[in-house]
């Protein structure tokens, strides 16, 4: 029987992780796969991410029930009790119907047993291979057996079979026998060769005598089929394309019928290679071209064998699928589509891609983060060239990759930071661009900051890149400036801002998943529902459907998860889900601490480095330790069984495991806890191996001093853990809180209605409050989308669905007057015409929307000829404006946007302009249309409409904020005077109409912000918890934000954010009771003076003064366990569980060897090296030395 999951998420980058977590947190079982050997996708390589130039990925981790997932840096890894992660795994096939899909996965083997690999690296030392390391974008070399990423925990080596030279030295070097190339099974790997050549099998057997594969021979197709039919032990079929009776194609088809999972490969003479390729298209795995010779065939076939026997085919039943395979970076070195040739990429070492530059800035990169020229000289002048492989019809990319502008800004910032304080001053940074696309929420100010920090922006495209004749390591670049002058400048480095491309295996994945791709090879998605693919039940998360930045990817994944969750819900409603069996833990709060310690000795490292028996003896002497046992395999089930048995015998109330890679064991602790009835918060795992690994590989392990040192180190570390565990608070966590399983959605526009529908579809009652008389909001005013859909019908349908939905109560003409409570349990009052209505709800979604700004300027509202783009859209739709009767139309972008008035890009205006422009041009092709703009923000696939608009003959005139177009009126008709930078001359445009892109403003939100205890940003939008990682959350849990109230966005983006918010809301509602994390703050009221310092420092607002009871209270769901309050409290009235003063101070004592242990006890003089100081340094001043506090 197949393992079954609620959802399959393909791609374990940031998008996939978000989708998987969103589903897992609502109790859905998820299988998360990635073709790479690590999680994190592209972001594993990016240490710094705009717009704050730091990481913060960990902020994605669950906030409620924190204990069910990992609580450490996500670069190390991730686990969640409801997620199974399969790396090195591809989706082969997806069959069946939504709700009952069957997915076939194939997991490649890394040939290194993760249960045995201790990451010592001896294999890599032995490996003779040297190939470019993908992690560092090829800037460093790696061996065939290597660590894919430096920071994963546990970090296991993997063998890259493609580059392996089959010398087997790694196998011999491995101290734990973790590497397995399956030597012994070759003799059972029966290979059937279907070839007309009479000696085919004998010849092969001769070549493979070392491998000893059994070869069988079939001279005709029929013979091969007969053999297959009767001999089930055949493991591989080799088809020579020259076979007849039946021919190769037919043979392959029939063979697949007889043995569907049998791997088949083809062989062919060079002239018939196309036939072999055709066989691969039909399902053969690979082919080999003759004339065959043992030097190439043997490694090829042997590697094939190793793959076949070690790769795993996994079939799973899933209800829904989320595809989040992200994007790849454009390769300018690609021989077919590369732009590198003209730009010197691959030829001049100073020309690098943005990804390569990113790695150069990274501490784990080739130079450890030190920026230098390739000849070692200081990097003084760096240039970035935008749109390499994007917005380039020649490179088949009529789209904008959306992220490169911001990446270049970030890299310029980084470059300046990395070179700051150096003698010659920070590096000079120059960005060559066409349009700086800073269309995200805070991106304009990000650009402004870069500009004020000295980053230079040049609107030009570099053309020629040559080595500088005076300084061959530098680059001489040429471009034409606005005035048309050829300009030559010298740079030390040129960074190509490479665009996004569909993932390499996109075609295969699309075929396997049965989805359509768009003309650029990305997943085709629905305009209004960008998370929807062409196949029902298969959703697109992250940047799979379009290149996106982190925030947008996270939102997109939330939307995909929400769609998947809705589907899963049809098959297994969360509401009806039985409560998970809660483990019952023994109450040990009245017992003295009794610690069972177990040291893993499965790996020889520890024993080699120190005297483990002595160590165990010493540890047994530590206070509260009842036994120190040695476990053979702490990493396997058996090892844990031994611990469980000992626990049953000794009834300890604390357990400490000394093993390697503690993070890997956290899920095990939960299991052990359930098995022996002890709360896992009273258990811990301490790493005892990494400390001695250094000693083992670099120093002679038999040196007594080294061994003693190692023992001391390990002892101290374990001792510290014992002390922390000893002080662990055994009292139960705060009582979980009952959840009111209903939602309040404020705002009845597109976002509010979408969120309400999504929550209601999960079976929870929703109260939808709209201030206006009717549902609909701003989206109701739209008449057309850029790609031609009908928003009116879409909105009318949605309003209809919402009004009819049995779980949704709609209040129009209504406002929220009051709200109190906390996540899971709110009480609000809605004031209506006919009085007020109380609402009890567990979550709140704020979707109060925004509107087109109106600023009375440029003759707006004075002259009839001036109107906003939205008005133009409506009048074009109604026929009020007849395009053919016009003699000229002018359009003005960024009107009072992206400047001191409203320093953000409203995102939608350029698309709105293009939409009206194209409609005008469609109706009157010869109508002159002039667009005055700063940067056209046609990000993503809307770029194609910009191209179309240009092609349709519209004239775009760039202006700078310092030199804005001037508008006068002649007979009520606008006359615009502007400076055309290309003509280097002013121009005057006479038009009948002037359409202004006025931008989006949020609706008045401050009152709601106050009512719900959330914040607004400087522009009046709601301030999300974290721009990148928690875009629809507030710091206050249980309240979510979406739509224009969060940030400007298109209808599709609004829908996505609404669904993402709904999914977050469902996460709270899916629990009957909400449980806090085990690291949570508490108040010892008897000590508390109510000074309120803890309230001031709490970043989550989790603390408040309860006036009725006159005490400080902690909202344990809001509390994330940062401990700020504990540090701020002078007398320990505020306590963080797991990190109490007693615990930390005794850990410090243990760290310093200040606690009694059997060995230190009898001979204090020889205790530690520190206590044996040099006389000369020990007594410089009598007052400083002696027992100064001697009462005598």
């Amino acid at each position: 029987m197949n393992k079954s999951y609620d959802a399959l998420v393909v791609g374990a980058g940031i998008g996939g992780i978000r989708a998987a977590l969103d589903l897992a947190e609502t109790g859905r079982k998820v299988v998360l796969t990635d073709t790479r050997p690590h999680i994190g996708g592209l972001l594993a390589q990016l240490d710094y991410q705009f717009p704050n130039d730091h990481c913060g990925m960990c902020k994605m981790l669950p906030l409620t029930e924190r204990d069910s997932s990992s609580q450490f840096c996500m670069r190390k890894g991730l686990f969640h009790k409801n997620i199974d992660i399969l790396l090195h795994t591809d989706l082969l096939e997806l069959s069946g119907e939504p709700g009952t899909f069957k997915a076939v996965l194939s997991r490649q083997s890394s040939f290194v047993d993760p249960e045995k690999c201790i990451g010592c690296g001896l294999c890599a030392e032995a490996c003779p291979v040297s190939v470019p390391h993908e992690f560092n974008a090829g800037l460093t070399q790696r061996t065939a057996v290597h660590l894919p990423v430096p920071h994963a925990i546990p970090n296991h080596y993997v063998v890259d079979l493609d580059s392996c030279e089959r010398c087997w030295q790694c196998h011999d070097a491995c101290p734990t026998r973790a590497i397995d190339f399956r030597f012994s099974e070759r003799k059972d790997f029966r290979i059937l060769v279907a070839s007309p050549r009479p000696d085919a099998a004998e010849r092969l057997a001769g070549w493979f005598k070392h491998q000893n594969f059994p070869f069988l021979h079939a001279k005709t197709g029929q013979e091969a089929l007969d053999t297959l039919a009767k001999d089930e032990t055949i493991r591989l079929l080799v088809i020579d394309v020259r076979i007849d009776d039946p021919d190769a194609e037919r043979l392959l088809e029939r063979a697949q019928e007889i043995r569907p999972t049998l791997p088949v490969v083809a062989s062919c003479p060079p002239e018939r290679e196309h036939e072999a390729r055709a066989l691969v298209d039909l399902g053969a795995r690979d082919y080999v071209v003759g004339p065959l010779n043992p030097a190439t065939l043997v490694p090829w076939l042997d590697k094939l064998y190793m793959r076949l026997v070690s790769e795993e085919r996994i079939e799973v039943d899933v209800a829904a699928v989320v595809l989040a395979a992200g994007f790849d970076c454009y390769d300018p070195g690609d021989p077919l589509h590369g732009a590198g040739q003209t730009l010197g990429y691959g030829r001049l070492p100073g020309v690098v891609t943005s990804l390569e530059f990113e790695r150069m800035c990274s501490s784990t990169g080739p130079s450890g983060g030190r920026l230098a020229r390739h000849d070692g000289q200081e990097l003084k002048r760096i240039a970035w060239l935008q749109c390499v492989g994007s917005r380039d019809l020649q490179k088949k990319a009529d789209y904008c990759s959306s992220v490169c502008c911001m990446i270049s800004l970030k890299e310029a910032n980084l470059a300046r930071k990395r070179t700051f304080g150096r003698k010659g001053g920070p590096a000079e940074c120059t960005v060559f661009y066409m349009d700086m696309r800073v269309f995200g929420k805070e991106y304009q100010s990000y650009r402004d900051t870069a500009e004020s920090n000295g980053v230079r922006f040049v609107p030009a495209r570099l053309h020629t890149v040559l080595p500088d004749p005076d300084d061959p390591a530098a680059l001489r670049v040429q471009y034409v400036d606005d005035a048309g002058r050829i300009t030559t400048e010298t740079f030390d480095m040129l960074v190509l801002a490479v665009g996004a491309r569909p993932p390499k295996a996109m075609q295969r994945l699309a075929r396997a998943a049965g989805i359509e791709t768009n003309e650029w090879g990305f997943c085709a998605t629905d305009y209004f529902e960008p998370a929807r693919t062409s196949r029902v039940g298969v959703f697109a998360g992250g940047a799979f459907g379009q290149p996106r930045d982190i925030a947008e990817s996270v939102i997109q994944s939330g939307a995909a998860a929400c769609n998947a969750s809705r589907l899963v819900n049809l098959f297994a409603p969360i509401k009806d889900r039985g409560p998970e069996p809660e483990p019952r833990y023994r109450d040990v709060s009245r017992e003295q601490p009794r610690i069972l310690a177990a040291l893993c000795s499965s790996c020889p490292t520890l024993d080699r480095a120190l005297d483990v028996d002595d160590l165990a003896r010493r540890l047994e002497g530590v206070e509260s330790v009842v036994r120190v046992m040695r476990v053979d395999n702490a990493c396997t089930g058996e090892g844990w069984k031994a611990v469980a048995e000992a626990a049953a015998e000794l009834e300890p109330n604390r357990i400490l495991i000394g093993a390697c890679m503690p993070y890997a064991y956290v899920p095990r602790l939960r299991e052990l806890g359930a098995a022996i009835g002890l709360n896992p918060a009273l258990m811990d795992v301490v790493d005892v191996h990494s400390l001695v690994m250094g000693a083992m590989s670099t120093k002679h392990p038999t040196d007594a001093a080294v061994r003693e040192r190692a023992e001391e180190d390990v002892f101290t570390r374990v001792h510290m853990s014992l002390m922390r565990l000893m002080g662990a608070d055994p009292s139960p966590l705060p009582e979980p809180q009952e959840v009111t399983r209903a939602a309040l959605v404020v705002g009845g526009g597109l976002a509010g209605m979408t969120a309400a529908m999504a929550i209601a579809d999960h079976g929870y009652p929703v109260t939808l409050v709209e201030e206006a008389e009717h549902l609909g909001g701003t989206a109701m005013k739209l008449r057309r989308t850029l790609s031609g859909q009908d928003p009116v019908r879409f909105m009318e349908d949605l309003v209809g669905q919402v009004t009819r939905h049995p779980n949704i109560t709609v209040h129009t003409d209504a406002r929220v007057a009051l709200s109190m409570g906390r996540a899971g349990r709110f009480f609000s009052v809605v004031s209506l015409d006919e009085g007020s209505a109380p609402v009890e709800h567990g979550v709140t979604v704020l979707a109060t929307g925004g509107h087109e700004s109106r600023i009375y300027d440029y003759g707006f509202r004075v002259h009839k000829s001036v109107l906003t783009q939205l008005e133009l859209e409506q009048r074009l739709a109604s026929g009020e404006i007849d395009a053919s009767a016009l003699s000229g139309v002018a359009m003005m972008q960024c009107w009072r946007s992206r400047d001191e008035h409203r320093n953000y890009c409203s995102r939608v205006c350029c698309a709105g302009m293009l939409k009206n422009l194209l409609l005008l041009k469609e109706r009157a092709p010869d109508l002159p249309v002039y667009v005055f703009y700063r940067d056209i923000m046609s990000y993503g696939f809307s770029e194609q409409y910009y191209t179309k608009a240009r092609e349709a003959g519209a004239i775009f005139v760039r202006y700078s904020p310092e030199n804005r177009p001037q508008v006068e009126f002649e007979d009520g008709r606008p006359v615009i005077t502007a400076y055309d930078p290309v003509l280097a001359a002013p121009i005057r445009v006479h038009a009948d109409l002037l359409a202004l892109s006025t931008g989006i403003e949020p609706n008045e939100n401050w009152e709601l912000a106050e009512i719900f205890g959330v914040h607004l940003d400087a522009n009046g939008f709601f301030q999300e918890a974290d721009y990148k990682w928690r875009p629809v959350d507030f710091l206050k849990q249980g309240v979510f934000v979406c739509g224009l109230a969060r940030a400007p966005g298109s209808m599709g983006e609004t829908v996505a954010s609404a669904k993402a918010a709904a999914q977050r809301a469902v996460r709270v509602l899916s629990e009957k009771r909400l449980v806090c994390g085990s690291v949570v703050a508490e108040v010892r009221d008897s000590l508390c003076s109510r000074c309120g310092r803890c309230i001031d420092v709490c970043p989550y607002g989790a603390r408040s003064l309860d006036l009725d009871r006159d005490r400080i209270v902690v909202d344990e769901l809001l509390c994330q366990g940062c401990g700020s309050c504990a540090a701020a409290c002078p007398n320990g009235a505020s306590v963080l569980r797991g990190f109490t003063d007693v615990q930390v101070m005794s850990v410090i004592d243990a760290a310093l060897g200040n606690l009694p242990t059997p060995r230190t006890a009898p001979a204090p003089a020889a205790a530690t090296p520190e206590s044996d100081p040099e006389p000369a340094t020990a007594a410089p001043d009598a007052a400083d030395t002696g027992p100064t506090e001697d009462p005598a």
Partner: protein
Amino acid sequence: MAPATEHADAATAKAPEAPRAPAAAPAPAPDPRAQALEAALDEVRHMVAGCMQCGTCSASCPNQFAMDLTPRRMWRLLLHGYADEVMDSKTFYLCSSCYGCTLRCPRGLPLTRAMAALKRASILRGGPGQRRHGAFYATFVDNVRRLGRVNETDLMAHYFVALRDPLAPFSFMPLGLRMLAKGKAGLHGSPQRGRLGPLFAKVREMEEKP
């Protein structure tokens, strides 16, 4: 297409004087030649409409140094409706059809073709500019047609005649002498003479067919 722009202040403008084309005043008498010219220019406008003014064409042009308008500005003028400025310029005549701009244009515009189309339009239009800038071009082609390859001496002789400028030969004298000295230009006849005649005839035949 009625151009609706004008230079606001011709005195400060570096671009040539703009014709004040009345917004809605079509030419009174449709001259077939003018119509053909307008159609030819429209074709070019259509070719370059997708231009984003990135300047790659200008930067990649090896002859840009000699042009009076950079290619980018020329496309821009054309799109703005300043056909005369474009027609009066020698930029497109200086295009040596290296295809550098076409290869590198991120919008994939057929710029070399557009240059050639401008040359054709210019011939259609005639006028003193065309004679001046077109002289070399016409002489060159004629030279190739007659001799089967370029004979520098013969070319220059015909060019000077076409220029109708008695002083022109003197300005080229130093270069001519140096070339003669290095054997780069000679008076000997071409063995290829007339070999391209059938090719030219075929092209003309093809062009004349509708």
